[in-house]
């Protein structure tokens, strides 16, 4: 009996020692659990078209550049790069120790394969336009040019030369994006539709490797031991819970199942704020309304401006949305660099519509004057104005508040018409209503992702805005290589846009999240990604 007891005790001691070693190897970090969305569409870098999918891809893959500990763009799979003087040719030097999770070397050809696959029209990638920055990318995607003409070349295994279509000063931002990470031809070409579903074939070059994907339940990543920068990675394991219902998400956060959660019910934000769990993250996006320019009365810029000025943006943000949004004084949101990073683009050009609460009366007075000048004093003589939106996504309260403001301030009756999402998109495109609700999230940290869409005939231009001067500024900016001049062109263009008021920006998006008070070292980016690579519990 004594002998057995001794044996058990010895075994227990050994196990304890080993368990101790295990946690020591993980540099003391604990697994991080979080929820940012429900089941993703895909984890395939070429096919992904969403923020959540991109977030998971960034765990398992790394682009030439990547997101650093401070949220800025830093060297990733490439340790350094050079640019030609005209800004068109970029040469990236891939790290000698950049490895795939199965131990193979990351080569220039892995990037070329991935980009060609994304831009190939048969792949039908939503994000193919990220490759449009590269020479002939757009033509290849449209089937007008041969794949071999894409502006990429492997000078040797570890050197990649990229030729761009136009100079792109923010190209380092672009290559950090999940759509442009490298892919393994030997794996992907074998089973293009299923490779990204199975952890065994989901081979990446990023800080983590996929260990399991339980559909509709959980995606688990564990630290990769072949990643070149593995020594700096803190969290040993990340578990992404796939959840849909907002109340269920909040319960999961409250009972400690997840330490970080997105998509919290709006009604609960105040309580979570008081509890000290809430963080409002700025997001690169603008919520706005189209004032459809192609028909009366919004074919008159004065009427458009009057409608925009009569809006109390502070009221919308504080009393209606309550998610910590910022009132929009112009179209391009905060966070995009100007000539220098700080002060940013928005701060530099200032407010086009004053959002100071004390200026609101003045705005309204101006609005009344403009409307009278346009021939509709006190709103008399205006045709019936329709406001279209998609039902059931929280847009009605905003529209109703606007309806009330226009009625009180301008004496105008506006009819709100809600449609099912698919139907509304068609109506918005066809210009059925006078006003459409709209919103835009930027694709990259550059003014062009916002400004390009209001050129004449652009597919996103639901306001049917057309101004030759504006178009010229935008196409000039596309060719300009001097950063200061280029940014100035965007400032000029935005001034024209706000003067013409084809749209009325309402507020800049934010993203409320709840974070456990013990969790530290989280990195949030303006494009909506969250990185736990350096996160740990206090």
């Amino acid at each position, binding site marked *: 009996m004594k002998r057995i007891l001794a044996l058990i005790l010895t075994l227990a001691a050994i196990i304890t020692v080993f368990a101790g070693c295990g946690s020591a190897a993980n540099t003391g970090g604990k697994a991080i659990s979080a929820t940012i969305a429900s*089941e993703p*569409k*895909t984890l*395939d870098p070429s*096919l992904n*078209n969403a923020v959540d999918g991109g977030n998971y891809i960034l765990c398992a893959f790394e682009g030439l550049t990547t997101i650093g500990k401070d949220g800025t763009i830093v060297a990733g799979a490439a340790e350094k790069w050079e640019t030609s003087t005209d800004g068109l040719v970029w040469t990236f030097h891939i790290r000698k120790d950049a490895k795939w999770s199965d131990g193979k070397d990351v080569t220039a050809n892995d990037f070329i394969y991935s980009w060609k696959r994304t831009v190939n*029209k*048969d*792949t*039908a*990638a*939503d994000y*193919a*336009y990220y490759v449009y920055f590269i020479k002939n990318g*757009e033509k290849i*995607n*449209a*089937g007008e040019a041969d794949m071999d003409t894409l502006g990429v070349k492997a000078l040797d295994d570890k050197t990649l030369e990229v030729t761009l279509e136009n100079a792109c000063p923010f190209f380092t931002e672009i290559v950090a994006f999940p759509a442009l990470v490298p892919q393994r031809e030997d794996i992907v070409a074998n089973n293009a*539709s*299923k490779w*990204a*579903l199975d952890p065994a074939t989901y081979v990446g070059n990023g800080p983590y490797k996929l260990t399991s994907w339980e*559909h*509709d*339940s959980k995606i688990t990543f564990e630290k990769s031991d072949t990643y070149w920068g593995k020594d700096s990675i803190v969290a040993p394991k990340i578990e992404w819970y796939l*959840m*849909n*219902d907002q*109340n*269920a998400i909040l*319960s*999961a956060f409250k009972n400690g*199942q997840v330490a970080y959660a997105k998509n919290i019910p709006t009604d609960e934000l105040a309580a979570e704020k008081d509890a000290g769990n809430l963080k409002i993250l700025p997001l690169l996006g603008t919520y706005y309304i189209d004032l459809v320019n192609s028909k009366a009365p919004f074919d008159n810029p004065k009427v458009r401006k009057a409608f925009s000025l009569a809006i109390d943006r502070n009221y919308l943000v504080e009393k209606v949305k309550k998610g910590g949004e910022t009132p929009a004084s112009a179209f391009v949101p905060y966070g995009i660099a100007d000539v220098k990073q700080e002060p940013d683009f928005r701060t530099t050009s200032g407010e086009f519509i004053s959002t100071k609460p004390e200026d609101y009366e003045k705005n309204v007075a101006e609005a009344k004057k403009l409307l009278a000048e346009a021939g509709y004093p006190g709103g008399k003589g205006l045709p019936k104005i329709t406001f279209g939106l998609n039902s059931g996504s929280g847009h009605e309260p905003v529209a109703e508040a606007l309806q009330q403001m226009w009625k009180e301030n301008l004496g105008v009756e506006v009819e709100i018409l809600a449609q*099912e*999402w*698919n*139907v509304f*998109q*068609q109506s918005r*495109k066809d210009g059925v209503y006078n006003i459409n609700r709209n*919103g*835009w*999230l930027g694709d990259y940290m550059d003014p062009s992702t916002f400004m390009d869409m209001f050129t004449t005939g652009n*597919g*996103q231009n639901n306001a049917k805005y057309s101004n030759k001067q504006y178009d010229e500024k935008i196409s000039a900016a596309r060719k300009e290589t001097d950063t200061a001049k280029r940014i100035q062109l965007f400032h000029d263009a935005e001034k024209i846009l706000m003067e013409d008021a084809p749209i009325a920006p309402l507020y800049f998006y934010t993203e409320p999240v709840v974070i456990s008070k013990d969790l530290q070292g989280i990195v949030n980016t303006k494009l909506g990604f969250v990185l736990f690579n350096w996160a740990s519990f206090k």
Partner: protein
Amino acid sequence: MAKYILKRLLVSLLTLWIMFTLTFFLMHLTPGSPFLGDKKLTPEILANLEAKYGLDKPILVQYEKYAKNVLTGDFGESITLAGQDVKDIIVRKFPYSLKLGLFSSAIAILVGTVLGTISALKKNTGTDRAIMLIVTIGIAVPSFVVATVSMVVFGVKFHLFPTVSHLDTLSSYILPGFALSFFPLSFITRLMRSSMLDVINQDYIRTARAKGLSDRMVIFKHGLRNGILPVVTYAGPMVAGVLTGSFVIESIFSIPGLGSSFVTSITAKDYPTVMGVTIFFGAVLIFMNFLVDIIYRFVDPRINITK
């Protein structure tokens, strides 16, 4: 009997085919596309996507191709869940709906029949009134209210049952099962009560009593067998409805069942998933109705289907 079953089977297949065709064309007639989001795609990218999924072809060609695939058991790949076969999605998600559905149907039928019978036998007593009050609530209150209230009270307040359910423990069945079965349970109770009242006043029951049979014998042998017929009629489609999952209940309790993917696939215009799940649900419904007809044959002495 065999002839009857064969005939019913052919009619079932025809029904399924009509349903398939109608759904296919209606789905393509409604506006929108699976590729439209807040982010609009450039015309080239949109054209590439439509070509990839064959949506650029004339609708009749698409119909023919899809029908052929379905005949070989291939429902295609989901558009919104890239690379995942619709068949795999159904196989993965249906068990959740099935498990919860069987649990809820069993509760609804068993408890409903018993309560209804008790109510009928104790007509106009306190017991009858109490049961009727509860089932009236069950019929009037929508399931999402039942779900939310029971979740708040028993899940959040008293911590008796989990609020997020993956149906892995018995206790995780209780709240969603209750929410899902409350309405059919109430409905069956009322059906059973009125049908039993009807039966009790029939001549053959009086005859049975006059013969001196015991109360128990009269109720179980003659009363229940006839009284349960309307319940059987109702139970077929009810079980099919409950089995195929409730979008509302599954969403509230975060159950990864098929009901929620059915609804989300429609709003997302995920054509292959909509078709696959519709065919599947349709087949389940038709099968349940078929089953009811067969059960009738055994339960109702008046039906003779050999004719």
